[in-house]
């Protein structure tokens, strides 16, 4: 159970977040989300609303946001659901943070393809910049988590920071990325090497004749 999130002290959280309410824009957005689902199926809106709430908490704390218990209860009451039902959802999905995170939520993929391609180096780079798994750095900038496959295996190893993927990382490029983020400099989203999305590195490796013109391979079939 060591990996299970440790919910922060309830009394403090209630004092801080007990009077959570939507901002006017988010209230409008929430109404739109709820209207997507047929009458009597409002339970379906719990996931988008939790996401919206997490983002609002993030905006209010200048972090990536998390879901304090009173905020979960707020969402549940808005949908007329038992607190437990929404709490179950919030604890099930890893993209809902049950503990505060930093400004940059660094989620390193550690599943097999990334591991084989060097996610250990990425983690080592994070460690070199003072990040440790499951914790937020003292300056509140970075929170590091190791996550399961994020579906970008072609570009392994990769991390997801906030809503963006950073791919084809190495020890050095990870360091550079973290430094740029910490300094507030713009960063390149996607592959960190010279590569377009998930196209082959260094140009096509198969069907090369097709690059410039149509080519009939049928004659070459043996």
């Amino acid at each position, binding site marked *: *159970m060591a*990996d*299970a*999130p440790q919910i922060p002290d*309830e009394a403090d959280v209630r004092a801080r977040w007990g009077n959570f309410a939507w901002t006017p824009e988010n209230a409008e957005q929430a109404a739109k989300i709820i209207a997507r689902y047929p009458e009597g199926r409002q339970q379906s809106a719990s996931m988008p609303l939790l996401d919206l709430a997490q983002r609002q908490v993030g905006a209010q704390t200048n972090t990536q946001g998390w879901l304090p*218990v009173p905020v979960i209860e707020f969402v549940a009451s808005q949908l007329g659901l*038992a*607190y*437990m*039902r929404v*709490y*179950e959802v919030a*604890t*099930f999905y890893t993209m809902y943070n049950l503990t505060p995170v930093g400004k940059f939520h660094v989620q390193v993929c550690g599943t097999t393809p990334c591991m084989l391609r060097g996610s250990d180096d990425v983690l080592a780079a994070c460690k070199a910049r003072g990040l440790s798994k499951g914790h937020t750095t003292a300056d509140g900038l970075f929170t590091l988590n190791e996550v399961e496959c994020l579906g970008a295996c072609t570009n392994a190893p990769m991390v997801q920071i906030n809503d963006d993927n950073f791919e084809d990382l190495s020890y050095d490029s990870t360091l550079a990325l973290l430094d740029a983020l910490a300094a507030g400099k713009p960063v390149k989203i996607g592959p960190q090497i010279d590569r377009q999305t998930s196209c082959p590195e260094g140009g096509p490796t198969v069907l090369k004749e097709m690059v410039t013109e149509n080519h009939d391979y049928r004659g070459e079939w043996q």
Partner: protein
Amino acid sequence: MPKLTVDGIEIEVPAGSTVLQACEAAGKEIPRFCYHERLSIAGNCRMCLVEVAPGPPKPQASCALPAMEGQTIRTDSPMVKAAREGVMEFLLINHPLDCPICDQGGECDLQDQAVAYGRGASRFHENKRAVTEKYMGPIVKTIMTRCIQCTRCVRFAEEVAGVEEIGAINRGENMQITSYLERAVTSELSGNVVDLCPVGALTAKPYAFEARPWELTKVSGIDVMDAMGTNVRFDVRGRQVLRIVPRINEDVNEEWAHDKTRHVVDGLSARRLDKPYVRKNGKLAPASWEEAFKAVAAAAKSAKASVAAVAGDMVDCETMFAARELVHALGGSMLEGRQTGLAYDTSSLSAVNFNTGIANVETADVILLVGSDLRREAPLVNARVLKAVRKRGAKVFAIGPETELNYKVEWLGASLKALTNLPAHVADALKGAERPALIVGGGALRYAGAHGAALKLAADFNLVREGWNGFNVLHFAASRMGGLMLGYAFEGGIKAVAAEKPKLAFFLGADEVNFDLFADTFKVYVGHHGDAGAHAADVILPGAAYTEKAGTYVNLEGRVQRGERAVFAPGDAREDWAIFRALSDVVGKTLPFDNLDQLRAAMATAVPALGQQGLADYGWEVPNLPADPDADVADYPIKDFYLTNAICRASATMQRCSAELVHGETFAEAAE
């Protein structure tokens, strides 16, 4: 009606049955953990795998598979055997081998099924997972490492108890069953999850480490904590009842019992009256039976015919009958059971009965509650109403101060005037209803005109029709209907009895009476607990609690049921009817029965319905009563669900429940 073959046996099952039910119909045992007849189907334990053709060539979960025409099902094939062994091995991977210290040992589904369907050895050599204990309140003890995540408790909390406070949080390896934020579950039915839990994850906290199931003698009884007449089993070891669990009775309690029924048991061995007492110089002093009887006989002599009997909430019909016969023999006629002062008309028992029937309430489509806090007065009737709301979309309206019921209720205000002048939409709903039910509680009955107005409403809206009687009065004393059948109702109620200034009064376990009214009366308390009644008494004759005597009880719907004696009363205490029989000898008016059978025969002669178990037929007669209520329902009779009678008040468990769940005190958990 699909026809299918199970292990070569051809059977026909009702449409909508599952394969598991079909297998059971064919007499085949299907092991299961998550499936439960009274809960929704989850299909997550995978223990009920069977081979089904036509279908994919792999075992299928029979609990969630509809039975179809022409299916061929095998429950005895090598594939099924291997599947069960595999599932069992997986379930046991994370299950601790702590059966020797587990309270579920001996009545554990996992234990039994591991023996019957398991491999016998595990191939798993890694570490097992461990889960921290969860706090679920004063009744349920959790050892969550044992949990196999069948989610029966989660479904029970939502579907039967109506409190969505138990759930499964996190996922995968980290999944845990817990109450919301590990708070106490605020349901009066929470103890049932202990019976539902197929393993030892949820066990009864007050019963922890008390006994092994095979040490216990099991005796059938009837619960007296409320007027439901819940069918229970007393589990006895030696001279003590150690545990009370429900028996299945579809018409009454299904297989549930509320927490008071289950855990009042420690109250049975505390504050007991185990010898007679006689008041001397203003103080109660222990006495022998002879001295006590002599004192009563002297009082009876001077009282002449001015004798009364007041029945408490938990007495059996035999006690009330014996007391009645003695009062009559002494020339008295004052009998009353409604201790707290209710004085409704009892000329027609059908007008004070729960006519719809407990089981039928769940088929009602519109329900109007009048002055009834259903959840506290009859939690299991409330569970039926919840079922009506959840399954059939019944609408519930209520007149009375708002109280926390666990389904959607439209409150019509506290004024009883609403009875004679229903809001238009409620009237329309009642008119349009096929099975409308009106439930009148003690909160309303105490006001003049309310009873008549409710009966008039029943007539106006045609609540009583062919095959359906929608008029109900909800009692919450186990002795009430029996008492009314035996004539324990004095015109004007207990105040009128007091106004007659009886010289001698027998209080049969009556503790809720305002004894100030009986200041000049020689009070004889026949009961089992040292509570209000004993404090006020001039003579105490120690009687037997409901576990210590065979008794007939009539529940709120007029169902006559008999319980058996599980243990003997402590010390010098005797069965109540025997006390009256012995006393009648001393006062020179010997009652004509020497044993329980003779008493029951005499009782059956006097009130034939009490001689036969089952629903008593009261017919349907409407007394002519004033129907002009002009009052607001101020409050409900039950202020503290856990402390409603002398036995609960003596129970440490019930006191703890009251402090924590009613008064909101918090308790630090002792470290184990």
